[in-house]
């Protein structure tokens, strides 16, 4: 893979930035920037604690549940929009609106409706993730070759069979890429939701650390989240590449 070529410079620049951070941190220029080594020491310290485990559990639960709902709603809706002009006319403006809207501003509304609890976090995740899933599933279905649709009809597929055996699979590359992008947005959603609610999960920890000026803890937590989002993206991108072979062979 080309990665051999890319990873080395990337790695180098990371080391340079890390060194710079360490120097600035040690110089004590600002309390906001503790030495990087201290942050990593904190990661090792925080991660095994029960508080962290609980926050991770709550966050993970909200994240997975929110994504599950977003997929369960988003994929069928996208497929229907891709197949039906009427459904498309009805939903597309809203989907486009929400896709580009500053969703953070809507979280307080969700908070009012669902209260200061886990439901709000789950709904925030759904709010962030669902639109891109809808749009990509729609694009995937619209890209299906018409003869494949006719094939299903000619051989007697009922609408359910056409959905489950043709549309979903034919649109799978786009659906997966929508899910991946949705999950990246969902990470934002879960963090923003928790920060705004700030009494559960990582939000509570962030609140705790920042209010007590525990900057090492604060950064440690951020790093863990960054690493999580990055790994998630890589895993999903890898999955996507596995189905790419037939995206090319589709037409």
């Amino acid at each position, binding site marked *: 893979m080309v990665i051999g070529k890319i990873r080395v410079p990337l790695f180098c620049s990371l080391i340079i930035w890390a060194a710079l951070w360490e120097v600035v941190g040690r110089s004590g220029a600002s309390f906001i920037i503790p030495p990087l080594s201290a942050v990593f020491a904190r990661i090792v310290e925080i991660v095994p604690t029960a508080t962290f485990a609980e926050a991770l559990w709550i966050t993970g639960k909200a994240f997975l549940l929110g994504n599950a709902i977003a997929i369960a709603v988003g994929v069928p809706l996208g497929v229907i929009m891709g197949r039906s002009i009427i459904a498309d006319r009805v939903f597309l403006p809203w989907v486009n609106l929400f896709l580009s809207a500053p969703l953070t501003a809507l979280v307080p509304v969700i908070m009012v409706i669902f209260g200061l609890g886990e439901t709000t976090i789950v709904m925030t995740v759904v709010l962030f993730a669902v639109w891109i899933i809808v749009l990509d599933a729609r694009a995937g279905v619209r890209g299906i*070759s018409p003869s494949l649709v006719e094939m299903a009809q000619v*051989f*007697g597929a009922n609408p359910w069979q056409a959905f489950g*055996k043709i549309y979903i699979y034919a649109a799978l590359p786009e659906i997966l890429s929508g899910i991946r992008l949705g999950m990246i947005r969902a990470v934002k959603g879960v963090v923003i939701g928790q920060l705004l609610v700030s009494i559960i999960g990582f939000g509570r920890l962030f609140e705790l650390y920042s209010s007590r000026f525990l900057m090492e803890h604060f950064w440690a937590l951020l790093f863990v989240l960054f690493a999580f989002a990055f790994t998630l993206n890589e895993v999903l991108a890898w999955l996507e590449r596995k189905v790419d072979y037939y995206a090319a062979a589709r037409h």
Partner: protein
Amino acid sequence: MNAATAEAIPAEPRAIVEVEDVSKVYPGGTEALNHVSLDFPEGQLTTLLGPSGCGKTTLLKIIAGLIPATGGEVRVDGKVVTGPGPERAFVFQDFALMPWANVLRNVAFGLELRGVARSEREAVAESYIGQVGLKGFEKAYPHELSGGMRQRVGLARALTVNAKVLLMDEPFSAVDEQTRRKFQEDLLELVARERKTFLFVTHSIEEAVYVSDRIVLLSRRPSRVSQIVEPDIPRGDDPEAIRRDPAYIDTVEEIWQGLKKYLDEGV
């Protein structure tokens, strides 16, 4: 323009597909078919031939029940067509295989949709895969096959559902010339072996004359039946001899003369 030659059809085989006064106007105003009436005798291969864009695909899809006619009706086996049905199968020009499924599943797909048990449908599919000459490729995926092999998969899939009528829209147009000739021979064999009715669309006059029992010439859009030709060519000999047969050459010439006037008129 020219009156459809409502030719007296020999009475022997019954008409399994009856097209009666069918018209089709697409939304947007394109008038594809103009009062077409046509019978397709059972057990024969009838070819639709005509200038590009004259509505051959449209007629085939109306018979398949994929699109509604704007006027007239189609009866298959005496029943009025309102949608696709198990007595009709379709072979697609671009194969229409599922890229995520292997040959076996693709061929068995019609039976899968009908809820036939897996072992049963796979046994049927395997036998047809053998018949179209793809034995050993059951586990291969479409992107691993050549165009000719993919169309054999499409053909096997249409045969597997055991429909009485096979609709084929330019099935050989996406394969190379050698493969195409082999296909034509295989098709003749198939028509002789399976007692099925074939509705075949092609652009090639030679192909039409070579494989057909009857050739329906359609006029330029909006289409009407302009002529029906029944090539009387000795079959069963070696293919090269057929292609040199005077009757074959004459028929090709006759059809060419019939179609040429549409070309002369320009588009």
